[in-house]
């Protein structure tokens, strides 16, 4: 049945690749379609949902989860997980406060310092996972606790306020777009998302991210320094954490050392809703952005419908189950 040359029968298999890419597109389309459906639903049931102010509000509230989710998408595609991004974010916010408010460093240096500090946390995660060989779940769970504790230690358990540096707060709520009242934070998320997309799809780093998640041993046997790339990928996720720390403290006008816990789960939920497989090898930035949007549209819409916070969590949990179940059912149908 198989012959050395490309026969008619062989050629017929070519469309299979097309079909497969189509199927993968469908996953993104499904996520996107559910976003539209949820959006449409809230628009109908509440007159206060669909207007410029509220939509901007939704986008604005996506920023922090979105940034965390983008970084952790890379980690999850390698087949790893990063639980330290929530409290890591709080620690980076505190570092930003220490540098800018307590030390009085210029704003750009303070911001850069906080982001790089996030990178440092990621680097430690990466070393623990890639060099010491700790399971990512354990390594980052430990880092989650360390970061939470350090945030409290460094800040003396008190919030650091940025009210003397309005430029910092403008990073988030200021508007570069003249007269449009469109928050900078959303622009930053958009730019970073595009960068992440380019990084994942168009660069060697992205290729190896998929490759490691798809078959780590084979990747290593192909002569790729898997350890080095893993360290880099965790560091990258750390940089996103640092940026999220800056953005959340800018939005709140203060660095809150006791916060952060729970954000990592929301971010991971966004990644999963966006169709990235927790077992690695598959995933996309577009999916993650849509996943993050679904979460904030849900939070916002349910709030507008005056559904109590407790129930919002129940509903979000069900949505995650549904998203993953739909994904699995689709795969089984293949």
């Amino acid at each position: 049945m198989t012959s050395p040359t490309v026969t008619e029968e062989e050629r017929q298999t070519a469309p299979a690749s097309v079909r497969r890419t189509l199927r993968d597109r469908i996953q993104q389309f499904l996520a996107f379609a559910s976003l539209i459906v949820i959006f449409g639903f809230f628009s109908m049931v509440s007159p206060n949902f669909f207007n410029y102010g509220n939509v901007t509000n939704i986008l604005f509230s996506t920023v922090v989860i979105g940034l965390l989710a983008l970084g952790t998408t890379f980690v999850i595609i390698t087949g790893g997980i990063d639980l330290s991004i929530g409290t890591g974010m709080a620690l980076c916010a505190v570092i930003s406060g220490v540098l800018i408010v307590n030390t009085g460093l210029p704003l750009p240096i303070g911001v850069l310092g906080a982001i790089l500090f996030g990178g440092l946390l990621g680097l430690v995660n990466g070393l623990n996972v890639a060099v010491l060989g700790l399971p990512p779940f354990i390594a980052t769970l430990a880092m989650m606790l360390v970061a939470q504790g350090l945030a409290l230690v460094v800040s003396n358990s008190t919030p650091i306020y940025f009210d003397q540096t309005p430029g910092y707060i403008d990073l988030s709520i200021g508007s570069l777009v003249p007269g449009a009242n469109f928050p900078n934070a959303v622009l930053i998320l958009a730019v970073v998302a595009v960068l992440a997309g380019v990084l994942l799809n168009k660069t060697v780093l992205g290729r190896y991210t998929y490759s490691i998640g798809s078959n780590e041993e084979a990747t290593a046997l192909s002569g790729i320094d898997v350890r080095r790339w893993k360290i880099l990928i965790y560091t990258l996720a750390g940089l996103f954490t640092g940026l999220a720390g800056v953005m959340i403290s800018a939005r709140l006008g203060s660095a809150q050392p006791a916060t952060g816990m729970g954000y990592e789960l929301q971010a991971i939920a966004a990644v999963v809703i966006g169709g990235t497989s927790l077992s690695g090898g598959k995933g996309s930035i577009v999916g993650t952005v849509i996943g993050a949007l679904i979460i904030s549209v849900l939070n916002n819409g349910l709030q507008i419908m005056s559904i109590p916070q407790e129930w919002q969590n129940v509903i979000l949990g069900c949505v995650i189950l549904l998203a993953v179940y739909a994904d699995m059912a689709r795969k089984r149908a293949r």
Partner: protein
Amino acid sequence: MLLEARGVGKNFPGVRALQDMHIELRHGEVLALVGENGAGKSTLMKLLSGIYTPDDGEFFLDGRPLEVSSPKHALEQGISIIHQEFNLMPDLTVAQNIFIGREPRSGGFFLGERTLNARAKELIDRLHLPLDPRQVVGSLTVARQQMVEIAKALSYDAKVLIMDEPTAALNDAEVQVLHDLIRRFRRPDTGVIYISHRMHELKAITDRITVIRDGRYVDTLDTPTTSMREVIARMVGREITGEAAPEGVRTGRETVLSVRGLSTKALLRNVSFDLQEGEILGFAGLMGAGRTEVARALVGADVVESGTIALRGRPVRISSPAEAAKHRIGYLSEDRKHLGLLLEQDVNSNVVLSSIRDLFQSFGFVRPKAMRERSTELVSSLRIRTPSIDQTVKNLSGGNQQKVVIAKWLVKDCDILIFDEPTRGIDVGAKEEIYRLLNELAGRGKSIIMISSELPEVLRMSHRIVVMSEGRVTGHLSADEATQESVMHYATLRPDETGPQENPDHSATEAGVR
């Protein structure tokens, strides 16, 4: 001499894996490397690919000392190894897999995807392979995935190509394609080391055969003037006595299992057969003929659309493997590593796994002593070669892993055992033991269905043979009627010759890996 190993040794704690090993690969030749599992072949591979470093001795490439520090280093020096386990990334495309680690780049960091696909296309065309560079590897059949491996290995400008069991998952036609590739690769300045358990392939493709045993060099023989019997004798260190012929209960057999009109949505159409007590019923057919699907439908792993199954005349409905086990039907999957064993656990846990609830608990507590006794008993009666029942199954050879799976079903005391490719990836010596075991089981009155792609095996072992083609039973043969030719005749019957049918999607069932 192209590649040479002189007195190479490698020790692990408590084990001398290799000792004073000699290999001589001449320019332009295909050298077979044979030995039982555990003879040291994979250790040798790992030394040559830089995963291990030798404790003694040296390698030489073109007369110069060769040191290999990493898989990458091996590739750079012209040594390409195709490992037995596929080293592919199922989520990446063909082109991305072939050039992994060597992607065309712009600016050092950005991927040149178009160049990548063009290069892959060029390579694939040069090798005459039926592959599409943009196709995702996970969606390919096992045979095509093997081709991707080969394309990848050859893309490195290899001088030495080492193939470890390259045909384990291929059918005869696909083996031909592979051998053609090897013949085309063979030039005056290259060489191939071909590791295989399939003796008839060695005749077809190799020039010389190096035999190793227990980590030591045994002998090197010229293929054309050597009989495979001699090779096997050197491999196992003894003559293999006679060919085990089918045994079992021959008179007054009762029909144990009776299947009528079995159909599934995907592939099977109107499959009917009987299985008798103490019988080995062979299932033959080409890849994708639906043999495994019959087994899966029987044990309730796949949904049956229509048809009846009767056990000793009593109709039964089986909707899950657990129910099948209750009816004392055991299915030993062809993919024992994924579906038959807990590789990371020890022999004991694997053997008792599916019987803990029924046999090894009292008042909700497991009874470890009883479990260990039973495991020990089976390890010795099946002659499973393992240092102890606490050994991790992963570390056993293929043949012994298969025996652990068999032990698991024996603990459950199954009456009907369905063996799917029971000797795949198992060396000659161990094969004989599996055959003997099958005969013993049949002799004890167990009824066995044996699905196998190796025709000689089916012919030799079966009392009767059911031949399938494209989801249907196309022939029933008794041991006397069955010959290579008659089986192949029925196996290649097209559906239009056996009656009308809608065209089932074959590629879907053939794509075993996904």
